């Protein structure tokens, strides 16, 4: 039975679609076309790529959440699955929620054992249609994907003009590809018009909720942030999921960093032989006065440990972008986690600790990467930008990037030739200003003053090698004083309320943010009220300790097994363990709001047995 479905009231702009594809079959661009069309209709959308560590052949999924309310985290319960991968077909059928839909290629008859009574099957003979209308084998494969986008556009009410415009943009310069794409779209559209009732009970309706926001991935934003932050030397080693950070830097630098007269590059980018060499180059370049960074993931950070300690102890600025993935060891290279927190915070032997920044959106990836260079140079130490695969490799709806043209870089305490000429004896590690941050000199500044040997060995205030126990201890204590200065310089947390009003709080960071915000609302609907804080940096400042002190308990929401940020809070702020309740998702999939809300609610129900009157007192 086909025709306009007028019976169903249904849900508007609130559903989850999952595409099940074979890796390497061109599904990515078709699936992105689908997500971008929804975005262009002014509706908040969150696409997530769930992909294998493989180039071709293994199953890959693309999940699109549409949310009128603007929730951008992952949601459980898949309303519709487009299942076009024979390998994962059975599993994909089971992933549909009861009452949901399955779109499949009905060219071949589906086996009876695969029929579920509680879902709807929408069979479209995609391969048959492709074979009938396209002769090129590659096109036959590619347009199968476009056919299902066409079908979905009717089932979910995507405006055809929007798809048309997107295809025109995508194939600008290759216009002859537009017509066959439109043809494939129409094949899907017409099939649904003839065969099925439409739209489905969940579908889309144009809104103006996107405003000036952009749809972009975090790695692009980090690469761009490094261009704006003034990085000139980039050294990197390929590793999923960080590779596209260096690629994005390269792309934007090639556009914006070319000398207008000579055509030469105002940057250098080197693919290093490994992560050790990458961070070594970064440290060498920063030592010599250039802003420099590298991007890697957990295994790379493990390899970089010795150099990280050198940056800390010899006080050389450096920026490292850690796009975290599921560990330990090689772990799940294409799945997300926030599990490098402790590794990054205390990387390297001896007493070390490092400044961490936690962006939660592409806009923050841009801002915090750009800001990390000022921070690293001012503090003369390593700054690690902690993103993850979810933020780095998935497109996110984000506030647009902003830059203040009036702002200039803060290169920190660097002495120039004139200052050296007019001063007394230069002491590289003297705490002149009482903030633990000494003055540094760049090689080549002054013929006879300011030269010294940078070393990873102990030294005195004048950079001379020493094994004097008192000199060593003075230096280590100054580094601690510098750490306290860092505490006041790093970005402050985001507080979700002007004054704390509830007994319980939630604390989160990075990609746990969207789902935590949504969980706060879900809990509120259930009558459970919590205050909230989002951490943007380590070391933690007094806002964080005040927030924790003001609550009976604080739920620490994160995506690792061992509650790593919770440990960091306990260590950095000397907080009693029982005050901090872990809420942990570590299966490699982005954390969901339902999971957070349920975990918190069940904890509070247990607490309720002990504290009877909890629910009367506005938790």
């Amino acid at each position, binding site marked *: 039975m086909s025709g306009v479905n007028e019976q169903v009231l249904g849900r508007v702009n609130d559903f989850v679609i999952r595409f099940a594809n074979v890796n390497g079959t061109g599904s990515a661009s078709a699936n992105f076309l689908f997500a971008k069309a929804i975005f262009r209709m002014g509706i908040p959308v969150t696409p997530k790529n769930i992909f294998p560590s493989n180039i071709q052949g293994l199953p890959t999924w693309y999940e699109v959440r549409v949310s009128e309310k603007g929730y951008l985290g992952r949601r459980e319960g898949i309303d519709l699955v487009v299942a076009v991968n024979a390998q994962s077909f059975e599993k994909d059928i089971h992933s549909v929620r009861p009452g949901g839909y399955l779109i499949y290629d009905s060219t071949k008859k589906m086996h009876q054992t695969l029929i579920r009574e509680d879902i709807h099957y929408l069979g479209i003979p995609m391969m048959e249609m492709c074979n009938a209308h396209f002769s090129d084998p590659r096109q036959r494969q590619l347009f199968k994907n476009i056919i299902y986008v066409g079908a979905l556009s009717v089932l979910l009410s995507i405006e055809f003009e929007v798809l048309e415009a997107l295809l025109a943009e995508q194939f600008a310069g290759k216009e002859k590809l537009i017509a066959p794409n439109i043809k494939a779209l129409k094949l899907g559209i017409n099939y649904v018009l003839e065969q099925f009732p439409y739209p489905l009970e969940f579908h889309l309706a144009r809104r103006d909720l996107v405003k*000036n926001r*952009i*749809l*972009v991935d975090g790695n692009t934003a980090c690469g*761009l942030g490094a*261009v*704006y932050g*003034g990085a*000139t*030397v980039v*050294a990197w080693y390929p590793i999923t999921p960080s590779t596209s950070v260096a690629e994005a830097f390269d792309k*934007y630098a090639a556009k914006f*960093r070319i*000398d207008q007269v*000579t055509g*030469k*590059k*105002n*940057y*250098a980018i*080197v693919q*290093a*032989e*490994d992560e*050790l*060499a*990458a961070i*070594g*180059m*970064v440290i*060498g*370049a*920063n*030592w*010599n*006065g*250039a802003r420099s960074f590298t991007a890697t993931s957990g295994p790379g950070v493990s390899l970089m440990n*010795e150099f990280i300690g*050198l940056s800390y102890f010899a006080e050389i600025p450096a920026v490292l972008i850690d796009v975290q993935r599921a560990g330990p060891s090689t772990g799940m290279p294409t799945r997300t986690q926030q599990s490098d927190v402790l590794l990054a915070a205390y990387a390297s032997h001896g007493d070390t600790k490092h400044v961490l920044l936690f962006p939660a959106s592409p806009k923050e990836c841009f801002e915090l990467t750009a800001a990390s260079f000022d921070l690293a140079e001012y503090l003369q130490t390593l700054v690690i930008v902690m993103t993850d695969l979810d933020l780095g490799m998935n497109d996110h709806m984000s506030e*647009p*990037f*902003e*830059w203040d*043209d009036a702002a*200039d*870089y803060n290169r920190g305490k660097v002495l120039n030739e004139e200052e050296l000429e007019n001063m007394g004896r230069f002491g590289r590690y003297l705490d002149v200003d009482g903030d633990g941050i000494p003055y540094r000199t*760049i*090689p*080549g500044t002054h*013929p*006879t003053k*300011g*030269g*010294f*040997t*940078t*070393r*990873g*060995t102990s030294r005195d205030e004048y950079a001379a*090698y020493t094994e004097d126990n008192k000199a060593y201890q003075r230096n280590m204590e100054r580094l601690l004083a510098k750490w306290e200065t860092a505490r006041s310089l790093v970005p402050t947390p985001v507080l979700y309320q002007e004054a704390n009003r509830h007994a319980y709080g939630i604390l989160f960071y990075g990609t746990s943010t969207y789902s935590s915000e949504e969980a706060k609302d879900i809990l509120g609907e259930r009558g459970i009220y919590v205050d909230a804080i989002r951490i943007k940096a380590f070391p933690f400042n007094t806002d964080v300790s005040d927030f924790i002190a003001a609550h009976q308990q604080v739920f620490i929401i994160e995506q690792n097994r061992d509650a790593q940020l919770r440990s960091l809070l306990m260590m950095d702020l000397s907080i009693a363990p029982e005050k901090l309740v872990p809420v942990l998702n570590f299966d490699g999939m982005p954390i969901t709001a339902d999971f957070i809300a349920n975990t918190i609610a069940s904890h509070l129900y247990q607490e309720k047995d002990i504290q009877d009157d909890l629910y009367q007192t506005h938790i």
Partner: protein
Amino acid sequence: MTYIKPIFRHPNLPKNKIGYTLKEYEGAISNLCAGCGHDSISTAIVQACFDLSIAPHKVAKISGIGCSSKTPAFFLGNSHGFNSVHGRMPSVATGANLANKELVYFGVSGDGDTASIGMGQFVHAIRRNVNMVYLVMNNGCYGLTKGQDSATADQGSKSKAGSINPFQPVDLASLAVELGATFVAQSFSGDKGQLVPLIKAAIHHKGFAFINVISPCVTFNNNVGSTKSYDYVREHMEATSTLDFVPMEQEIRVAYEAGQVARVTMHDGTRLQLHKLENDWDPQDRLSAMNAIQRARAKEEIITGLLYLETRYGDLHDILETTHTPLNKLTSKELNPGAAALDEINHAFS
């Protein structure tokens, strides 16, 4: 080890072209063992830089870990030094070089630092033709940890404790030629006459200039039976040539018989004049250089002098097409695309 350095200097110490005396090129007092070959190499570096009138602050000295890597503190005290981590000097030097193409870079390393822990980085610095002088102070043993064999110790060489090294050595000069290093030389710390012009030529070479200097360890590897002792090296050294380094503005005055002289013009116009002692060796031919090294090795000789030179290739900056201005001197004006460009970028994602 020298404990006392005279403060008094002769008032009429000779000055170089930019007005500095040798004193301005000296470093802190060495704390290596008395008689250590490394100290002689430091002295040769001081002499070369003084002679070439290089402003001391226009040199950066970068090292790894080990006895050799301590030496940058003992020469060119007005230059910045960086005693980094074990085996990773090449990456630090590469980064530093990328930041500022205008300085002279000395990468100082040892046989442990280069041929074992740092082999990977050594190889890749060569591949990239980083413009630097890479100097290995090669004594065949780990001095700071009390004399263990290193990867350059010859098979059959006897340690001070009496053990015989059973493993094949890594021949750094052969390896450097094989990997395409654009300047490869070998020398002996006890032969200052050869070492100083080699260092000068290496400084003027635009690209990766490798000098493997056999530098006996007086404490742990100077015994009878060691192939890295002073006596052994003196007996088995075979120079390929005598080298004259000719600055740009000078004429070549010394005349050699035709057929025995090889003249090479460097990137910056300075020239090398090699008085060849072996006729079937051409320093600009990789195969012939490789043959010369292998022939000497078969005869248990240590071939010294300039072994191979290639001036046709650009350095890493040429390869990467970086701008003329050192990257560390660029300001936000050149580096920051600004808010208007960002609006365009935002638009592309909307």
